[in-house]
């Protein structure tokens, strides 16, 4: 469905969006399968409506939001870089709202230190969750420190490229944290829980030495099996010779806005 929103103040400038076809047909969404083409091909039976998002935990006013209420909020477009941990990247015009606005409405308690996110569990509609291969502990889980979650760049996206989120991109609502690797951007969210202790996260559970809790884009800290110094831009026309690798930027190019969140931290250890 069409979904219109004007570019917000934090939308990127000077970035060329990845072609819509590639951004919606080259996806990692293991709930639908392991291949990049699986999410687009195998998400046809997924029902993103009716849908609610429960926000609870260490908050004064726990609430359940209906997806229509989320879509009715003031929305803005954010053109963001997206860097996958597999060393490829895209530029995507998301439509959404600051997660901070939602969190303020539920009034986090002083004891809340982290925000835990949980995806929907629907093996009947998500063939990857029904698979014999136990690739991840379903449902998918992610987490942020509360200050990361409250950062104005962190958004809940309900659309992209002027339309509501396609199933394969995490319909009907997903997280987008542009300075972190893509796997932090948990899709099809049903629960947001504020906690005092660091929540479990799906990829960190799977391989803690390869996927850290922070997962900040960092060209200086390699994945054990490949370098993170450069990235392949997806969807450049011209095939092999279309676009060369480009350098990966610290915090994916958002260092100016977010580096302060990690002042004094050893980013090699807290990768």
């Amino acid at each position, binding site marked *: 469905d069409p979904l219109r929103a004007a570019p917000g103040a934090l939308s990127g400038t000077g970035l060329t969006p990845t072609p819509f076809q590639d951004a919606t047909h080259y996806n990692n969404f293991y709930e639908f399968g*392991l291949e990049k083409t699986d999410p687009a091909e195998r998400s046809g039976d997924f029902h993103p409506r009716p849908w609610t998002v429960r926000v609870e935990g260490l908050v004064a006013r726990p609430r359940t939001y209906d997806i229509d209420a989320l879509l009715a909020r003031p929305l803005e477009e954010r053109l963001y870089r997206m860097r996958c*941990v597999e060393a490829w990247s895209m530029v995507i015009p998301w439509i959404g709202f600051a997660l901070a606005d939602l969190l303020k409405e539920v009034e986090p308690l002083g004891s809340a230190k982290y925000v835990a996110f949980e995806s929907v569990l629907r093996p009947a509609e998500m063939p990857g969750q029904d698979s014999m291969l136990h690739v*991840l502990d379903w449902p998918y889980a992610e987490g942020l420190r509360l200050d990361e979650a409250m950062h104005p760049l962190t958004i809940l996206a309900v659309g992209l490229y002027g339309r509501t989120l396609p199933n394969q991109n995490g319909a009907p609502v997903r997280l987008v944290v542009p300075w972190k690797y893509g796997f932090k951007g948990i899709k099809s969210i049903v629960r947001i829980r504020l906690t005092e202790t660091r929540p479990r996260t799906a990829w960190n559970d*799977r391989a803690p030495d390869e996927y850290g809790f922070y997962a900040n884009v960092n060209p200086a800290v390699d994945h054990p099996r*490949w370098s993170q*110094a*450069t990235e392949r831009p997806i*969807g450049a026309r011209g*095939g*092999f010779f279309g676009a060369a690798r480009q350098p990966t930027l610290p915090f994916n190019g958002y260092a100016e806005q977010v580096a302060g969140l990690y002042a004094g931290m050893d980013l090699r250890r807290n990768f």
Partner: protein
Amino acid sequence: MARRLSPGLIRAALYVAGLMPASVAFAMGATGRLGADPVNAFLRMLGLWALRFLILSLCVTPLREIAGINLLRYRRALGLLAFWYALFHLTAYVGLDQGFDFPVLLADVEKRPFVILGMVAFLVLAGLAATSNRWSIRRLGPRWRALHRWVYPAACCAAIHFILSFKVLRPETLAYALAVALLLAWRVLPAGMRRRAALSR
């Protein structure tokens, strides 16, 4: 009809057909028809075909012993195709993917088991390809057989390299690794057991 085809002709056909996947994929990739991430897709298909030909070459001995089908005269072609695909795979990685950035490449080889395994497999295949000619066979004599047993560790390295190239264990990577494991297990079976397995067919 099939009887009249000479082994030489079949070998030539094998090379032509064997190099077809690489040629088609290269043409598609060079003209922007290999999907959203063409270099990665090309790299992966080349590596996969290298492993496929390596496995096919390892099938020749058990196939003869178990089923009595003798494809020995095509084994060198299968092994050489594995080598060529490994070379294309490495070249695509160094050139198309990494843009000949040798400092980064050297650092990769130095510290990543994933890359080291791939390099070891390639170097072994290169050595075997270089000694696959009649002259080397004559010259090396009995040492030739011993030398060419290095294909076994090379296949192990290639299979593990394939497993590690994905974030998670996948059915297809496990299937290839299992094929390699079974083919190598056949080699370590005592000769008596191999003969019994062959007779029971």
